[in-house]
């Protein structure tokens, strides 16, 4: 989670929100959240699980 926050703090282009899945079950269901962390980029579920910083950046840029 912190990695997403760091990206948002470092770039005016990036916004990052942590969403507590249990408190927002409807949204979690819509986005098929069964494992955490689930990373959603621009509203599209992209991947589950933590990845190293370079890979995280690569995936954001590729999205």
């Amino acid at each position: 989670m912190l990695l997403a926050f760091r990206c948002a703090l470092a770039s005016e282009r990036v916004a990052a929100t942590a969403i507590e899945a249990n408190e927002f079950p409807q949204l979690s269901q819509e986005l098929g959240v069964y494992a955490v962390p689930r990373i959603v980029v621009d509203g599209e579920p992209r991947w589950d699980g933590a990845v190293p910083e370079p890979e995280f950046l690569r995936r954001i840029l590729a999205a």
Partner: protein
Amino acid sequence: MPLLRPEEQTKVRDWFAELGRPVGLLVGLGPEETPRAGSGDVDFGAEMVRVCEELADLGEGVTCRVEEEPAGFLRFPAVSIRPEGRDVGVRYDGLPWGYELGSLVGAIIEAGREESTLHPDSLAALEQIDRDVTLDVFVTPT
């Protein structure tokens, strides 16, 4: 019961004492979704206020404000983490408890830094982004 044990409070106080710039926490309260069964009989809004106010008490550079349905908030309760009071798009929707409390503390520490802790290559990659990107990270209080 306090949010953090005394030794944890000391640690967080030390971290917050090193902040290079002030950090504002804007807590947004409003209509809440019915949480998943098993979440217990918790007043999530009240707990969010308690969490953020307790954290603000641990550092002179950390302040907490509470508003009803502030602009830009999509879900409630939530907290916007704001370096020097500016909304830079960093928010936590829902109550950050358990392990996730560390994410909120970490976000405050990062927001309080003048320089990013990202690797220079990552910063260079971020500079390539020429459109707005929204990252939503779903978490649970494990």
